């Protein structure tokens, strides 16, 4: 028997595969469909070996037809399977939006609760590989505007495994956003095959008392680095990772702001209309408002398409030093 707490160091990418593989072994109703996920092993090598283990009936290479991939997944979920489908890049979800937004998200409600749509839509997202404007977006805010969808994003390998498993076990359509820049990052991952991360629960990644930073995806690590740097100067930053972007568990953020009186919200996605604005608004509406000692600061992507050149690309999304300066600004130390 494996020790229940046994951990193994692995890459974020491999942790997603491990979670998917465990769930496919556990439940025959789980199938996996997408473009080039079979023999090729996925555009990012994420599903390497899965075809050999599960066969063509459960690992299905599709035509380049995102509308059909998502629609088929919704129809299969509605009738008793638990499909996981992959958009090669999150940008391509725009081609499958009808099936996701008008169909899958609403069926449970508009059919009066009589049906479930247990599907996972895996969405490799974000900047970091110089892929340009149509392969680098973070479109989570669009999805967070649709009641009926759940939107989650893991920021570490352990979260990646626990969250993909929870997403597959969930009875709703779950959009699982995977920042591509994290694929090669490593961390300890529990090997327990019942290890899950609860959907709808915000995590406090680092306790602190001076400034609250809410960050997710690639920005969590950047915020953590900034916090380690600031600790040397005696500044204690509290870092919160919502994990589930929609519907978001706000209470830990509210409590944190009551404690620190200062809030930074951060994401790679463009500032305008982003998830950060929603968090800021909810804090402004909450009892935490009276505790604010400084304006809320949003550290977000610029309102531009993602440029191709690596230097330009890095310049449009927040970096570690932006967090450091943001904290200084809220503490009036600049």
């Amino acid at each position: 028997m494996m020790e229940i707490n046994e951990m193994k160091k692995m890459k974020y990418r491999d942790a997603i595969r491990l979670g998917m593989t465990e769930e496919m072994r556990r439940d025959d109703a789980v199938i996996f469909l997408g473009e080039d996920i079979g023999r090729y092993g996925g555009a990012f090598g994420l599903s390497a070996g899965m075809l050999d283990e599960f066969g063509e009936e459960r690992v299905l290479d599709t035509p380049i037809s995102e509308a059909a991939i998502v629609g088929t997944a919704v129809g299969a979920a509605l009738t008793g399977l638990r499909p996981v489908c992959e958009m090669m890049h999150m940008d391509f979800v725009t081609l499958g939006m009808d099936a996701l937004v008008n169909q899958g998200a609403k069926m449970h409600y508009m059919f009066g609760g009589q049906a479930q749509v247990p599907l996972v839509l895996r969405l490799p997202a974000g900047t970091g590989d110089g892929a340009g404007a149509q392969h680098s977006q973070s479109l989570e805010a669009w999805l967070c505007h649709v009641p009926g969808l759940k939107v989650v994003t893991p920021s570490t390998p352990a979260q990646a495994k626990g969250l993909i498993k929870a997403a597959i076990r969930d009875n709703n359509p779950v959009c699982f956003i995977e920042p591509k820049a994290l694929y090669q990052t490593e961390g300890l991952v529990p090997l327990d095959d019942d290890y899950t991360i609860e959907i709808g629960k915000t995590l406090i990644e680092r306790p602190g008392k001076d400034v609250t930073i809410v960050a997710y995806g690639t920005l969590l690590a950047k915020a953590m680095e900034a916090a380690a740097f600031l600790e040397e100067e005696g500044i204690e930053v509290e870092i919160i990772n919502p994990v589930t972007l929609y519907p978001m568990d706000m209470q830990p953020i509210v409590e944190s702001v009551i404690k620190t009186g200062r809030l930074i919200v951060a994401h790679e996605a463009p500032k305008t209309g982003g998830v950060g604005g929603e968090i800021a608004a909810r804090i402004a509406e909450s009892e935490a408002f009276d505790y604010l000692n400084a304006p809320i600061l949003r550290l977000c992507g610029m309102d531009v398409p993602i440029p191709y050149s690596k230097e330009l690309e890095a310049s449009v999304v927040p970096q570690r030093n932006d967090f450091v300066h943001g904290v200084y600004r809220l503490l009036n130390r600049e």
Partner: protein
Amino acid sequence: MIELSEEILLRMYYKMNQARFFEEKVEDLLKRGIIDETVYLSKGEEATGVVSGLALEKGDLVSMTHRGHAQAIGFGLDVNLMMAELLGKSTGYCKGKGGSLHIADVLNGNIGANGIVGGGFTLSCGAALTQKHKKTGQVVLCFAGDGATNEGSFHEAMNLASVWKLPIVFLIENNLYGMSTPIAKHMNIENISDRGAGYNIPGLTIDGTDFLEIYDVMTKSLRYARAGRGPVLVEAKTYRFCGHSSDDPQVYRSTEEVQQWQEKDPLFRLKKYLQENRVFTGKQLETIEGEAKSSIEQAAEFALESLEPDITTVLEDVYA
């Protein structure tokens, strides 16, 4: 031509009448303002929905269109619950949250009407994939209109269904207009069934007002799909006697054209067949019509007497 059993013909005549009375009752309720939401009626097109529904086997699935009342009746949905849903009542199929556009009975294989033109094609692929995966031997009947075949989802679904040999029969109810736009202005082909060729899917065009041809072709198509040979595309030429929706002034077609098609009324054609072949006596036909009519009257009563949904349910069932 195929011979249909008396039992099938009885059910067909009953349900076709039910479908006609259902639409007429809805028209009446619309005029009286009792229904004041948008509803799309299928008067004149009942044969495709009803007859193909009767060709299904127990356990087969169906995906319906926005003009889906006859399709639902053909599949075997309960007219009481349908009417209650149209009136937005708590006793309706969707507890008043769906309306005509989202009538569904998912556990019994009806995966829903659809408010998105062409929305059902890819959903049907998924429902068919489930049948294939679970080796149920069931087929998915996917209804759509002519206009829907100009959506990208039609082409993606046809291609996928063909490549994966999914058990689906796509039944296109070609009523010659995409809302107001005549078919000649929205596609450059005579027969929509020709579109099957591009995906190596058998395509057939039939007379959508002829119950015998519909039953014959649908039975064979369903058998073909059930045998694992892949999907079939059937196009039934038909016509709606009423407007696109409840507030359609119908300026885009002539009364002569409507009259010409009314002469091919599928319900009348069925009745004529039953009379000429002496399947039922005049008295028997009257009895069937009367029963169908009273079932719709009862449905309307049931719906009118049902309770409105409790306002507290508005936040229920967003998530499963």
